[in-house]
């Protein structure tokens, strides 16, 4: 019974494929795999927007949206209708073709990333041999669409926003890839499906996730920080910085194209969260051995929503960084830590299992943290601010 519940979508697809003539089999198979993803993740986007607004409201001791439908949960529908019926304004001097293509490219690239995410057991669109590489290759296309949006609008604000966004995305793509390299080293594969399979299995009730190793813990932390920056979310939301450059690269967009940017941004966040789940949190595997009866795709979405909730929590807590702080964090802390983390993974791999291995690896993690703290203390020179008034 649990087997059937777990594989219900796979079985449904097989059943539907029985009615398709042999000529159309490949294309029908592709459509049947892609369409659920095209439905599920925009739906998740809609749910996330309302959850985020409600969550941020509660963090700030407000109610959040609570008017549209029961407890405000129809808010995304109202938002969708609003953005669809709004006038689509294109600046007179804008580069029409590029201005139109930028949001389309962003959403397409964001959707492409889902092709290699294993959502459940046997539920992945393509099991690419180089899946993780594909994911990052598609992610790099996003930068191009951001540039296209910023450049084609012929606005100083959008160009500034695009420049900031590209500088940030390039800087954080390096640690993002390096943080996931440890998993690739340990799993010995670039295929997302086999990475998840490597993390299957339990010791007692505890799963064999890569999170529960010193390098996995550090890698997950670095990956999530880089992912936050990569998806332009607070506290790394400089490219959008409402108080400085209003909305960054999509300031000149309105109506449905603006909504597409929002969709693309959130889809990118889900995709990187999904990759974090695949790499470090055991993909669709249950967190305890006695919970394996719950279908695998439910576990994937539970983990995804947990990470999204974490993103919202972070957004509600931390203020925006300054540009130099952002770059310093990437190049002076995250990148060296990611490189060190690879060393830790190597040491972990070649040492005998046991307490000694843990202690050695934790010591290697702790040393740079202590050094960093010392460095921060030295750099932090607080002084009484003197205010000067015009008289």
């Amino acid at each position: 019974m649990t087997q059937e519940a777990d594989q219900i979508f796979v079985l449904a697809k097989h059943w539907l494929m029985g009615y398709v003539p042999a000529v159309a089999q490949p294309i029908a198979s592709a459509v049947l795999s892609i369409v659920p993803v095209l439905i599920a993740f925009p739906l998740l986007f809609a749910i996330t927007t309302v959850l985020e607004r409600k969550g941020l409201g509660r963090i700030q001791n407000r109610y959040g949206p609570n008017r549209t439908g029961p407890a405000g949960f129809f808010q995304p529908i109202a938002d969708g209708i609003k953005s669809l019926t709004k006038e689509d304004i294109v600046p007179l001097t804008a580069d029409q073709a590029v201005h139109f293509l930028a949001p389309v490219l962003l959403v397409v690239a964001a959707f492409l990333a889902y092709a290699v995410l294993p959502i459940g057991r046997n539920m992945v669109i393509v099991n690419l041999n180089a899946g993780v590489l594909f994911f990052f290759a598609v992610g790099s296309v996003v930068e191009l669409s951001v540039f296209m949006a910023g450049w084609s609008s012929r606005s100083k604000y959008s160009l500034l926003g695009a420049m900031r966004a590209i500088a940030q995305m390039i800087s954080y793509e390096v640690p993002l890839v390096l943080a996931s390299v440890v998993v690739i080293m340990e799993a010995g594969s670039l295929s997302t499906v086999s990475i998840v399979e490597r993390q299957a299995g339990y010791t007692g009730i505890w799963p064999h996730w890569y999170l529960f190793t010193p390098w996995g813990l550090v890698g997950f932390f670095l990956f999530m920080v880089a992912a936050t920056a990569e998806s332009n979310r607070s506290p790394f939301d400089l490219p959008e910085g409402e108080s400085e450059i209003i909305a960054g690269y999509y300031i000149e967009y309105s109506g449905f194209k603006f909504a597409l940017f929002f969709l693309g941004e959130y889809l990118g966040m889900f995709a990187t969260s999904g990759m974090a789940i695949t790499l470090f949190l055991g993909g669709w595997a249950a967190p305890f051995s006695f919970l394996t009866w719950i279908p695998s795709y439910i576990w994937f979405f539970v983990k995804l929503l947990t990470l999204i909730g974490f993103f919202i929590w972070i957004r509600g807590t931390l203020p925006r960084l300054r540009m130099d702080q952002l770059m310093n964090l990437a190049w002076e802390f995250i990148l060296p830590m990611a490189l060190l983390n690879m060393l830790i993974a190597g040491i972990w791999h070649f040492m005998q299992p046991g307490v000694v291995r843990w202690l050695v690896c934790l010591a290697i993690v702790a040393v740079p943290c202590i050094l960093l703290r010392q460095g921060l203390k030295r750099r932090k020179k607080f002084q009484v601010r003197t205010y000067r008034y015009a008289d």
Partner: protein
Amino acid sequence: MVGEGILKGMVETARNFLGSYVEKERLTTVQYPEERIPQVEAARNFPFLVYDGPNWQQGMRCVGCQICEKECPPKCIFIEKSKDKKPDAVGKPQFYPAVFNIDISVCMSCQICVEVCPFDAIKMDVEYDLPTDDRFGGLLLNKQKLSKSNEYYHEIHPTEASAVDGALAEERAKVKAAADAKAAAAPAKPLAPATAASPVSPTGETK
């Protein structure tokens, strides 16, 4: 520890998040159409016309002097003075505004009209719930819509209204005393004092 401040902040926001479900007094917002915050006495937004007594047409204090129309910075007041005279609240014949319109979509709530009015006829209202789906007609308030009773004025600004009432009563008493004196001095011509006194405004004597 590195990241201690971040953790503290996150604990604080988590407490806010959970606390907002438990303790209602944490929530700083009110659910607007159902609940409203009681307004402070000095609140004001758009002007209205005060009338004395039960009838708004009869008791209107405004005499159509058009000072407020001239002083209004965004020029949102439009007045047409009447050709004839009607008795005002105290029974004295006065001019009155045949048309008195305020376009509150233009009004900037500066209160200059209130400052300059010599008759205490125009005052600031506290009503802010004025949405309409007619952007031109709906926000152009005419004389009838603008007229509100002195009781209403007492209700929204009690202190100010009492002070205004006191001043008005004092001045009316003075005018009456002067008229009585004149009437006593010239009992032969009973109609003269009324016509002579009419151009003199209640506040005219203070100038």
